[in-house]
Structures are given as structure tokens and as C-alpha cells.
């Protein structure tokens, strides 16, 4: 049962991530056609990346590179370099995803390390 639930969770996470990456690919980053839906509200990939970064920050596990990529994507957008902006947002989302996964992993793993671990 545990394994089954774990697999289902993985499928949801992967499906979400594929949807994000797919939505980032065509068109400009700020283009409404590439908007995503989060909690029933349409948001841009940039907003999605910012939300994911915020989640990692709320968990206390934010990464510097994520914030730097989000800021860099804003600069790229302003300069009209949408390819760079897209790439930066995609990387920011991947890093945010990894930092959230790190937080989830560490929720348990911190107890297993020397000199206190079993």
C-alpha cells in the first residue's frame, strides 16, 4: 500500500513538472498563452517559479541560485531576450523543485547523522 501511494505521489509530481516545463517551452515567458494554472488561477511561468522559490524559502531551504536565476530572467525579459528568460525560468524551477525535495528529505534524514544518529 505504501509503495502504491508513493508511486501515485511520484506520478503527480512528475506530471506537474512536465506540465510546467511544457508550458515554458513555446512562446514568450510573459506571453499569456504560456500561462499556467495554479489553484484555479492563471499564472505566468515566472510567477510559478517565484511561488516555488517562496515555498522553498518558507521551508527554510531556499537556494541562492534560484533567486539569482529569477532575477536574471526579469532582466532578460526587460531586455527582450525571451529565449534567455525562458531558459533561466526553467532552471530556476528545476532548482526550486530540488530545494523543496531537499527540505522534504531532510525532514527525516537530519536525525540519522553522526554524532547523534543511530
Amino acid at each position, binding site marked *: 500500500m*505504501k509503495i502504491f*501511494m508513493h508511486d*501515485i*505521489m511520484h506520478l503527480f509530481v512528475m506530471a506537474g513538472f512536465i506540465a510546467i516545463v511544457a508550458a515554458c517551452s513555446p512562446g514568450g515567458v510573459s506571453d499569456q498563452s504560456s500561462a499556467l494554472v495554479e489553484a484555479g488561477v492563471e499564472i505566468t511561468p515566472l510567477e510559478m517559479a517565484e511561488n516555488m522559490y517562496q515555498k522553498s*524559502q518558507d521551508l*527554510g*531551504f*531556499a*537556494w*541562492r*541560485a534560484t*533567486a539569482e536565476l529569477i532575477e536574471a530572467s526579469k532582466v532578460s525579459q526587460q531586455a527582450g531576450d525571451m529565449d534567455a528568460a525562458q531558459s533561466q525560468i526553467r532552471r530556476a524551477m528545476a*532548482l526550486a523543485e530540488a530545494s523543496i525535495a*531537499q527540505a522534504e*528529505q*531532510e*525532514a*527525516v*534524514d*537530519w*536525525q540519522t*547523522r*553522526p*554524532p*547523534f544518529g543511530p
Partner: protein
Amino acid sequence: MTGRLLVLPVAWCGAMFVALVGGEVQADPEADRAAFRDFYAQRFPDVPLSEHMNGVYAIDANARSQWLELEDFPLYEIAVDEGAELFEVPFADGAGYTDCFGGAGVRQNYPYFDQDSASVVTLELAINQCREAHTEAPLAYDSRDLVTLVSHIAFESRGAVIDVATPATTAELSAYSAGKRFYQSRRGQLNFACGSCHVQLAGNRLRAEILSASLGHVSHWPVYRLKWQEIGSLHKRFQECISQVGAVAFALQSEEYRNLEYFLTYMSNGLRWNGPATRK
């Protein structure tokens, strides 16, 4: 069918709750401290535990000889003198730091867990609480004034024994556990915990530097760091470490860092306060 759909998330939440809360080992600070000391005693059998208050200079003979030469004309001395002058400047209401602290040799009283605010009070926090109680503006946590005041207090407290009361109440244990958890958690893109360097790799080289033991990590602050070219606080060093592993640093005197300081200071109980100091 609907009932079955509801059962799955509820079961998942229950499993997560058990994993995150029920599975967490009950905090036992005394046992932790014994394990911490035993670890370093075994890792560095030739180094007396008390010597770890000198950080990496307890385990790196070459760096130690350079450090001892620096101690002939300590780089933190100016900060101590500045702090001593500031300590005597009266507040607008006529009171002064002595009215809050009694005297300057009080480093050993901090950090402590304050039951009223249910949080850890550090020396920096206490200085600002003193100022605010006498209608003075609090000092910025990265200000030179605050660092020099702490330098003076640390200097006047040299030789006092680190003796943080064993966390016993639920609130104390919660702050202690939060500090311990912070210390043990891997962070940042490099996926390093504090303990990765200062427990598991203590005594090994990271590039050109030998990694120090965490025992005694808190005893000698503020520190004139050659890399900074100025004197700085323990929390500034926390920020630097967190940033170095690729994570976003927390604010100076944030709850996270105060809990970490509480945990680390408790781990160093029995060693002596020996700040301020010079470090590479």
C-alpha cells in the same frame, strides 16, 4: 468511491504525521552533549577537549604558530577599546548598560532561554533590549557599535565557564531541537549540513583549509577575520557558511540562528569563554 478517494489523502497525511512527528527521536540534550564530546575525543585523541575553544588552532600546528604571533598585537584590540568607551556612554535618561547588566563581565549569561518570550536571548538581543528599555534606539545587528560592545563584554568575561542550563521545559527543548535540527540538516546546492564539515570532515582539508571541530565554535566571538578585514559576529559567520553552501542565509539574530547558537553553546558547556579572537 468518494469515500475511497477521501481515505487516500487522509491515510497519506497520517503517515506523514507519524514520519515527521511520531518518528522524531525525543530530545535528550545531556546524551547529545556526551555524544558530541565523545566524537571529538575519539577524532582528536591528542587534543584536550578544552583546547577546542581555540578552533582550528587546536588541531593545526602550523596555523597555530601564525595565530600566536598575531596575538602579540591582537587585531581585535581596537574594537575592545571602542566597546569599552561605548559601554560607559550614558543613555538619554541617565541610565547606562551597567544598570541592565551590572557590569561588563556577563558573556557567560548568554544565550539563555527566556520563558516569558519563549525564545532564545543572545547577548546582542539583550543589549538592544537594554537600550529599548531606556528609550534608546536599538543598534543594527551588523553595526560596528554593537560588535564592539560585544567585543568589550567578551573580553571582560574571558575565562568564565560556558554553562548553559540544560534545556528541560517543552519550550526549551523545542528551541534546542530546532537548533540541533538546523545544525544537522543539509542545505543549499552543495547539500551540506553544518555537521558535514565540522563533524564528519573535521580535521580534514577543504581546499587549503583544515576544518575545525564544532566543539568550542561559539566561545571566541566576536572575531577579527582576516578575510573580512574587520571584526564580526557569530551570526555573520553563520550567514557566510550558509551562503557558501549555496543556500539563502537567514537574517542576523533570526530565530533560526539564535536557536543554533543556543544548541552550539550548550554543546560547548564546560569550555571557557575566550573572545574576542582572530581567525583567518
